[in-house]
């Protein structure tokens, strides 16, 4: 669906995107995961043709130029900023954007209705957007991206500043779109979102893709070892422990945490409490991008 090769973008002396390459398969959900300023939105803007690339190529279904109307008609983009009109109602926003994509008559009505249901805004459709909550606006922003029923949808950090209920609804609807066969590119810096939703995740930082794989693949490569923390009933005498004991608490890392815990138990070591922290996408992210603040 999308093939990006050696894509580069510079803003003055700053290289925002530095020769990245990736492929998004049709019907998959591709995640761009990176800290603030990593180059995610710049990449999205180049894919949709809002920004010209300084180098590299983008092909969408084989077409090289995303600014062509025929290509744009196949793309839906929900930008990070709320790109909706607060003076208009939710219904009017959807109808307006639908008309820009050539929808008219019953088809337009049908799509507007679908999008209102998608965003959970049927009951507030005639209210002005200015009266909506942050979550409702965010959902409408997403709905405006799919009003023309595009096969390729790009969601740029769609859950920023929304409440848990809205976030849950957004996840549900994105998963539904994927089940219906849409190709989705999803940028976020929330690990749990990428871990839950994405088939493939590219970790991006300083304009470069640090790694790209499925979530289990990334964890296996970069997640590190599981961390076991156990509060011991008593300190064993004369036995070698796999980690250090501080104030009666044993802590050690392991590639096979369950096997190691079973072995300790077999050696007669009893635990008051036991906690196993398996590596996750956050571990991958921090291992790849470091722990330095990115303000």
């Amino acid at each position, binding site marked *: 669906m999308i093939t990006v090769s050696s894509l580069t973008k510079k803003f003055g002396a700053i290289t925002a995107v530095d020769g990245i390459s990736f492929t998004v398969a049709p019907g998959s959900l591709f995640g761009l995961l990176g800290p603030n300023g990593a180059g995610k939105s710049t990449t999205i803007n180049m894919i949709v043709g*809002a920004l010209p690339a300084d180098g590299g190529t983008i092909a969408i279904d084989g077409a090289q130029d995303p600014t062509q*109307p025929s290509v*744009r*008609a196949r793309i839906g*983009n929900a*930008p990070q900023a709320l790109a909706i009109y607060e003076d208009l109602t939710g219904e009017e926003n959807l109808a307006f954007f639908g008309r*820009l994509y*050539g929808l008219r008559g019953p088809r337009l009505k049908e799509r507007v209705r679908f999008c209102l249901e998608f965003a959970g805004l049927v009951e507030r459709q005639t209210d002005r957007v200015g009266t909506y909550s942050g979550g409702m606006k965010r959902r409408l922003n997403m709905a405006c991206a799919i009003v023309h029923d595009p096969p390729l949808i790009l969601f740029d950090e769609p859950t920023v500043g929304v409440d848990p209920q809205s976030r849950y609804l957004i996840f549900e609807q994105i998963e539904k779109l994927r089940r219906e066969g849409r190709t989705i590119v999803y940028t976020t810096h929330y690990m749990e979102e990428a871990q839950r939703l994405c088939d493939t995740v590219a970790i991006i930082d300083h304009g470069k893709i640090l790694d790209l794989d499925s979530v289990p693949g990334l964890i296996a490569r970069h997640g590190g070892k599981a961390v076991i923390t156990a509060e011991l009933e008593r300190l064993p005498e004369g036995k070698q422990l796999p980690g250090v004991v501080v104030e009666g608490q044993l802590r050690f890392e392991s590639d096979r945490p369950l096997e190691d815990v079973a072995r300790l138990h077999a050696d007669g070591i009893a635990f008051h409490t036991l906690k196993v922290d398996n590596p996750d996408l956050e571990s991958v992210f921090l291992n790849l991008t470091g722990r330095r603040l990115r303000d």
Partner: protein
Amino acid sequence: MRVALTIALKDLRQLWRDRFGLFWVVAFPLLMALFFGSIFSGESSAARKLRIAWINAAVSQAAVDFREELGKSSALVVTDMPLDSARQLVTTGKITAFVQYLESDTAASAPYGAPQGRFKVGIDPSRKAEAGYLEGILSQAYFSGLQKMFSDYQSGRDWIQQSLRGLDSAEGMTAEQKFQYRHSLTLFDTALAAMGQLDTGTSDKQGSPFGQMNLDFEDVAVTRQGPRSSWEITFPQSLQWALIGCVAAFSLGLVMERTRGTYLRLRLAPISRIQILAGKGLACFIAGTSVCLALMLFGIAVFKVQVASYPLLLAAILAAAICFVGIMMLVSVLGKTENSVAGAGWAIMLVMSMTGGGMVPLMFMPSWLGTLSNFSPIKWSIFALEGAIWRGFGWGEMLTPMAILIGVGVVGFSVGVTVLRRSEM
């Protein structure tokens, strides 16, 4: 075109819902026209009438009828008030005169129902002409009963019969006097009866020797070089304020689209940049033209603004609207934030308005400012509108201001689009 219209309708709907923005586009220009028009207007019909006060110390029917007759005069504005107040108003020049009626000591009325008492007129001695004018109007009212009698003989005869019946019981008259009065009234009654018979079969009472004076007025207006009223100056000016309001509203709307991300969403739709901007321009054009037409219709209907040529007026409004669409596009790219565009926009428009006759009418400008005004599109816009309203332009004379207006519009739009395109790189 359909895309541009879709965007234009969206923008117009947004403007309609923005009450504050709408105020600057519609209400403010109208207020300007009304405010300055009323300041400069000294020729209202009410102002041309004599304002007098009526003081009646008594309540006789004759006096009441006289007051009513006076009130019918199209040359007077009569207000009832006490003598002290009336004297104060005359002293301060707020009314021309007061007329005080003092009832007669005798109960008898003057002939033909006219009041028998005395009239006292209070007026500044220097106002000789107005005093004479007022005297004529008072006399006309006083003798209106007599005039009515000779226009309607039967009512005259009714009054004679009533007087004859009252003569018998009249006190303070000698028998000789009563005889003379009876004799005279009977002769008069006979004469009226005869005249009534003579007039039978003809409805034309103008031939009556006692009828109204045959007096016709013909409107012979003084030939004027300038506008006929202040409204013909202030309404073209108000149209400029309406167009300036449109420029402010729509340039701000465009920069808001850019800062809030909706412009990006528009750009990602399968439509061209020029379609988007054409939609923006079309919205500004429709709003500007509509408000200008509405303001002019209001001026024509309410303030009797006389338009010399309606086709030229329409052409001038269309050309002015095109000009301001271009200015709107140019202003919208003067800054990247709403504050910078709003500030720069109003500053530029105010300077253009000040030098172009939007504040001080072109005809009152000193010559050097008149020369400077040639660089302001507002000057040409007002010039074109005034040309259609009272300057008496033909199509040939209208060509120059219209060409300048359309030229400014095209250049402004082109420059704005170019700057916007470069800023997107």
